[in-house]
């Protein structure tokens, strides 16, 4: 067990080392969400009425935070698929290390990237007028909550990455599924404007519950934008935690098993 943890840490360090060796990854992972902050703030911000004191940016920031951590899934998946095709995974699997070490190390490494990205986004948000006013405790908790969501999603990424053959295909597929999911939510606009069936979908969408939970934690009144008064819109924090636990309960064992048997068929 002690070895399993230290092995995972070695892999995490490797992921971090990759960021230092290829700073472009870090730079572009940061630029994209910061660009989204600026675009939404100034392009849509004027037309979307959020009814929020302080304007649309207060409503927007939690949405963009969640969208960004949701993209962790694609990053984890394509990184792992690349290691698979290069035979790196075979090397790891021939080492006397715990089977879980590699996948745990990878997910932790990707979370470390999220810390940097969230920090840069927070800073950009602050510059364009984002002012969370719920106090340091709740704000810190909100960021931990975002990291936890990203972490749980990276386990789906691990599973997808291990299942696929080509890194670019994985990147495209994960992006094509994650992107609409982040928009079919309350992240950028209240769900009340959506057609009825989409509204139901958006209410149950984990992205919406995490966004709503974060808005609460950042000091906004629950801005779910839902009309139905459904369970997730009433209890976004609890619902989000249930989602995260469920994702990990399903995908951690699946991923470890997939990794153990990678290339065996």
């Amino acid at each position: 067990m002690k070895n399993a943890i230290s092995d995972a840490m070695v892999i995490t360090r490797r992921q971090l080392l990759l960021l230092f060796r290829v700073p472009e990854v870090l730079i572009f992972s940061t630029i994209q969400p910061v660009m989204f902050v600026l675009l939404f703030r100034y392009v849509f911000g004027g037309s979307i009425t959020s009814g929020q004191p302080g304007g649309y940016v207060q409503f927007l920031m939690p949405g963009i935070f969640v969208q960004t951590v949701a993209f962790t899934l694609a990053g984890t998946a394509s990184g792992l698929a690349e290691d698979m095709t290069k035979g790196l995974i075979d090397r790891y699997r021939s080492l006397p290390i715990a089977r879980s070490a590699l996948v745990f190390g990878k997910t932790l490494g990707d979370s470390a990237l999220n810390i940097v990205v969230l920090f840069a986004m927070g800073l950009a948000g602050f510059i364009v007028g984002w002012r969370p006013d719920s106090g340091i405790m709740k704000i810190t908790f909100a960021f931990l909550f975002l990291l936890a969501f990203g972490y749980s999603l990276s386990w789906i990424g691990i599973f997808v990455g291990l299942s696929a053959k080509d890194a670019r295909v994985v990147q495209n597929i994960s992006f094509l599924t994650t992107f609409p999911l982040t928009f079919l939510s309350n992240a950028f606009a209240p769900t009340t404007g959506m057609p009825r069936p989409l509204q139901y979908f958006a209410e149950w969408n984990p992205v919406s519950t995490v966004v709503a939970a974060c808005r609460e934690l950042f000091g906004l009144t629950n801005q779910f934008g839902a009309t139905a008064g459904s369970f997730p819109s009433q209890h976004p924090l609890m619902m989000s935690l249930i989602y995260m636990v469920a994702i990990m309960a399903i995908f951690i064992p699946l991923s470890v098993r997939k990794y153990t048997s990678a290339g065996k068929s």
Partner: protein
Amino acid sequence: MKSVSAEQLVKIYKKGNVKALDGLSLDVEEGTVLSVLGPNGAGKTTVVRILATLLSPDSGSATVAGIDVIKHPEKVREVIGLSGQYAAVDEILTGWDNLVMFGRLYHLSKSAAIKRAEELLERFSLTESARRPIKTYSGGMRRRLDLAASLIVQPKVLFLDEPTTGLDPRGRQEMWEVIEELVKGGVTLLLTTQYLDEADQLADDIVVIDHGRVIARGTSDALKKEIGGERLEVVVEQSQIARTMELVTRVSGAKATLDEGLRQISSPVTQGSSALIEVLRSLDEEGIHPLDIALKRPSLDDVFMSLTGHGAEEAVAAESGKKSKRGRS
């Protein structure tokens, strides 16, 4: 004592329903080098992956250093080194980064991992490039680094899966030197290759496999004898074929054969170079000037021709096209 022993291994890949191994058995004596020789798709990589615990066989059994690979894969992993067809190292990281990381994964302390990395870089002539990312390395350097990574903890058994495939002649030569060095140090090595000369150069024993079965085994010399050793090949003008056939048959002591399309006469010879001189001399006396004359060492194709009745390339073509075909240099 047997360091590696495989008994009746069978492996069927469900995808494409390919029978990769069809009751394959082999063993490696401690401190010796066994070369598994065969064309693409013969099952070489599958054997290595099973012995290195990356794959489980559908049936059969295998032990490495006396440990059952199916029952105790985690124990096997502690005593083996594996270097595959691809250089399985992180391209973005430097050579130094890679070796230190693998050292840490073998549970060396940080200082021990660094010390070991530096030793290995030195030994494989990579010290100068240690701080450069792997993607700037030549193919030969990558393979050497990959090999170094499999030697971090002195393995009891080392598996090298086609260590020189895809390398240019120089990279290949360098790799051979490194492997010979290891062999002198007394490592137990199982090496797969599609090149007979590589097996010849590096191995004590050779098993030839095709379609997942062993079709011949023995020392390099024994196999060559079986295959017939060198061949003399002469190409002459149409009108001189009959006379040349007689000459060649007389010198070689074996019936010469004719490829009519190429006008090429060939015959197995034992004392290659002296036979070549003698044939040339006789041809000259007869006033025959050959268009081409050569002494050919048996190639893998010849081995396959003589052992299976089909060429190595055909075996590749017959395979489901799972792997890309690699040309032989």
